[in-house]
């Protein structure tokens, strides 16, 4: 019973909300404008059976993953280097601030004109969003490292690579995971922006088509798949995080979920 109770607790709000929506669509408002859970569900099943939507989901998935990984690696690397090079950072930081302040939605058309309407332009937009988040996460992490930790390791005879591997990376791991978690949702938004502006495939393209055809169920199916994608990515990172950061006080029993 004790194992089942939390599951019921977790699902109860969803049941209430979806139930209210379903009833509302039956009696209170017109489901043609907001959709109806039962219809959305049957449309989802039909679309998944038909199969074409899997290709759209796969394309969006790869846009997100490529952009996410490349953006995280490059942003993290730049943040890492600048964290240890305060003089260089003083020169470069204002430029990074300016570039990060540019609304990516505003320059997305330029990126698409430059890179075409294929996957490259979407990956580039995702990178432009993830890069800055990871940059600031890692940069501030490196700047906050307790100097005593590095001193101790060096007194013990650790060389540069050992200091980085045994001290710096573990010390900033919480910042890295924070950056990775916030980046996911922005990576998804980046890919969708790109697909909304110009694309021939992808879940954003699918949603755009559905809305053009006044297909409310289609829009919701696209949204559901995107949410599922975010959920899988976030959960995966959460599991890795709890494993890697089990030394952190807040990772003990009752620690933060996703």
């Amino acid at each position, binding site marked *: 019973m004790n194992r089942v109770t939390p599951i019921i607790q977790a699902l109860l709000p969803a049941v209430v909300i979806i139930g209210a929506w379903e009833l509302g669509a039956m009696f209170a408002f017109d489901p043609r404008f907001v959709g109806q859970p039962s219809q959305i569900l049957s449309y989802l099943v039909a679309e998944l059976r038909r199969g074409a939507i899997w290709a759209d989901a796969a394309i969006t998935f790869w846009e997100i993953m490529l952009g996410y990984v490349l953006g995280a690696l490059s942003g993290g690397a730049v943040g890492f280097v600048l964290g240890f090079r305060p003089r260089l950072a003083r020169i470069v930081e204002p430029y990074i601030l300016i570039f990060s302040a540019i609304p990516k939605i505003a320059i997305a058309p330029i990126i698409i004109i430059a890179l075409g309407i294929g996957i490259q332009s979407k990956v580039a937009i995702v990178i432009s969003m993830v890069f800055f988040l990871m940059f600031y996460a890692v940069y501030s992490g490196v700047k906050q490292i*307790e100097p*005593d*930790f590095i*001193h*101790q*390791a*060096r*007194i*013990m*005879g*650790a060389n540069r690579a*050992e200091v980085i591997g*045994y*001290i710096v990376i*573990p*010390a900033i*791991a919480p910042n890295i995971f924070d950056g990775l978690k916030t980046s996911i949702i922005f990576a998804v938004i980046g890919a969708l922006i790109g697909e909304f502006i110009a694309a021939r495939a992808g879940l954003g393209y699918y949603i755009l088509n559905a809305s053009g055809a006044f297909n409310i169920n289609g829009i919701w199916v696209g949204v559901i798949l995107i949410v599922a994608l975010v959920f899988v990515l976030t959960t995966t990172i959460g599991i890795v995080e709890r494993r890697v950061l*089990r*030394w*952190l*006080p807040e990772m003990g029993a009752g620690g933060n979920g996703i």
Partner: protein
Amino acid sequence: MQIVASMRPGDAAVHAPRGSIQIENVNKTYRENAASLVVALEGINLDLPANSFVSLLGPSGCGKSTLLKLIAGIEKPSSGVVRCTEVVDRVNTGVAYVPQGRGLFPWMTLLANVEFPLKIAGVAPAERRRRALEWIAKVNLSGFEQNFPRQLSGGMEKRGSLARALVTDKPILLMDEPFGPLDAHTRLSLQQQLTQLWEDVKNTVVFVTHDVIEAIALSDIIIVMSPRPGRIADVVKVALPRPRNVLSVPDCDGFVELHAHLQRLLFGEHAL
């Protein structure tokens, strides 16, 4: 043969015994901002004999932690020379260092922490496991090997820190107010454990503290420092017998005079 004749001044200490520390004409200034310099240490000369327990005693701002960092080589003197057998001109890997605050790396278990300096030194896994476990036992932390520092109390973490510092058999141990933030009971207990461990190991210890009784209880030599600029006010020998019990040190002959003398140095004739 007549090497001494060709020596420059100060080189006499080149063949000083392992574990001794010479500090010659050391000054240390910090640039606080564009306009002002802070003199942290001025005209420091010390010759600390090997295998003695030395305390640096003084109020905050007297540069005692800075002096420790110069010996550790993590800061450089503005002028003058620090020598631990050889001139210290980079990070000094000939010392072990117990810093202020929480000492252990929070992302490693106690065992991994104590093994870490041996791992860096290239000691084989089985051997470093054996030595780490031996030292964990000596500081009474057996059974906590797999705990992370967050799962240890402040006093336990300090003992782990001490084990990690002693596991490598370095000739010099530097400790920067290691027992500062602990409660009185834990403090006394750690002072006693440190005394017993040290009377066994007998390496050179430089111990920074602002606590007069702690300095007397632990030390052979007390370097009293005065602040702004940091200078040496006096070098006091503590002739209390060993092995010592830190709890009964105040009852020893000579303690009262020594205590009064140190208080006068720290607070002036008319203070208190």
